[in-house]
C-alpha cells in the first residue's frame, strides 16, 4: 500500500488525488461492512456515500490517534445506527439480550444440559458452502446495537478497544454486547446443525428469543 500517512497528510491539504486514493483503498471494506449491516445494495450505497463524504469533509479532524480504518468505521457505524433499513423491521432498538435467557439450562430432573461439540461439523458445512447464509441470517436477527459490535469485532476483526472507539461505547460495554451476540449466534448455529441432522437434538427450543415481536 502507498504510505497511508502521506496520503492522509496530502488529503488534509485538500489534494483531490490523495483523497481519491484513500477512497479507493477503503471502499471495499466500507461497502462490505455496510452490506452486512443493511443487507441491501441501495442502503449500503447510502452508507458508503455518507461515510466517504464525512471522511472528505472532516479529514482535518482525524488526529491519527487511531488507525485510519477505525476512524472510518466510526463514521460508517454512526451512519448504520442512524439508518432505518428499507423494507426491514429492525428488532426493537436497545432491546437487551438476557444472558439468563441465552444460557443452556439443566433439564427438569436437574441434569446438566447436553451440549454437543459441533465444531468440526460446522467447519465442514462452511467448506461445503452451506453455513455462510445461515450465519448471516443469524447475525441479522440481532438487534442492531448488538449486531454492529459482533460484526466489527468478529467479522471485521477489530480489537475490543477499536470497536469501542468505532461505536462510542466503553470497552466493558463492547465485551458485554459481544458476548451476548456471540452466544446468540452460537445457539442459532447449534440449532441449525441439529435440525440438519449433523449433531444431536436442539439445545434450547423453549429458550429462544423472538426479536420479531
Amino acid at each position, binding site marked *: 500500500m502507498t504510505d497511508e500517512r502521506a496520503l492522509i497528510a496530502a488529503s488534509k491539504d*485538500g489534494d*483531490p488525488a490523495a483523497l*481519491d486514493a484513500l*477512497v479507493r483503498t477503503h*471502499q*471495499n*471494506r466500507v*461497502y*462490505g*461492512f455496510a*452490506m*452486512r449491516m443493511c443487507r441491501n*445494495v441501495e442502503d*449500503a*450505497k447510502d452508507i*458508503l*456515500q455518507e461515510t*466517504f*463524504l464525512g471522511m*472528505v469533509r472532516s479529514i482535518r479532524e482525524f488526529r491519527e490517534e487511531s488507525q485510519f480504518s477505525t476512524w472510518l468505521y466510526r463514521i460508517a457505524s454512526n451512519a448504520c445506527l442512524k439508518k432505518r433499513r428499507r423494507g426491514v423491521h429492525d428488532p426493537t432498538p436497545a432491546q437487551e439480550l438476557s*444472558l439468563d435467557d441465552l*444460557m*443452556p439450562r439443566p433439564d427438569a430432573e436437574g441434569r*446438566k*444440559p*447436553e*451440549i*454437543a*461439540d*459441533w*465444531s468440526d461439523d*460446522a*467447519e465442514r458445512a*462452511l467448506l461445503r458452502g452451506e*453455513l*455462510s447464509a445461515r*450465519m*448471516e441470517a443469524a*447475525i441479522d436477527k440481532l438487534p442492531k446495537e448488538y449486531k454492529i459490535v*459482533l460484526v466489527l469485532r*468478529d*467479522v471485521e*476483526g477489530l480489537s*475490543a478497544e477499536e470497536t469501542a472507539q468505532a461505536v462510542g461505547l466503553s470497552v466493558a460495554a463492547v*465485551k458485554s454486547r*459481544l*458476548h451476548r451476540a*456471540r*452466544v446468540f*449466534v*452460537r445457539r442459532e*448455529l*447449534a440449532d441449525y446443525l441439529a435440525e440438519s441432522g449433523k449433531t444431536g437434538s436442539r439445545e434450547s427450543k423453549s429458550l429462544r428469543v423472538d426479536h420479531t415481536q
Partner: protein
Amino acid sequence: MTCRELFERLSEYVDGELSQELCQEIRKHLDGCDPCVNFAKTLKTTSELCRRLPSQPIPPEVAADLRSFLTRHLPKPS
C-alpha cells in the same frame, strides 16, 4: 466457580482477555464439566467462523456512482 459464573466470562476467556488467576479458575471448572467444555469450544468456533465469512466486494457501478457522488458534493479546487 459455577457454570453460570463461567458462562458470563466465556467470550473474554476464549479471546484471551482474562487474568491468569481467572483463567486458572475457569480451567479448573472445565476439567470436570463436559457441557461447559463443549460450549466454550463451540463459542470459539462461532467467533472464528464469523471471521471467515466472505465480504461482498464493491461492484464497479457502485464504485463509479460513489466517485460521481463525491465529485458532485465536494467543493471544486480553487
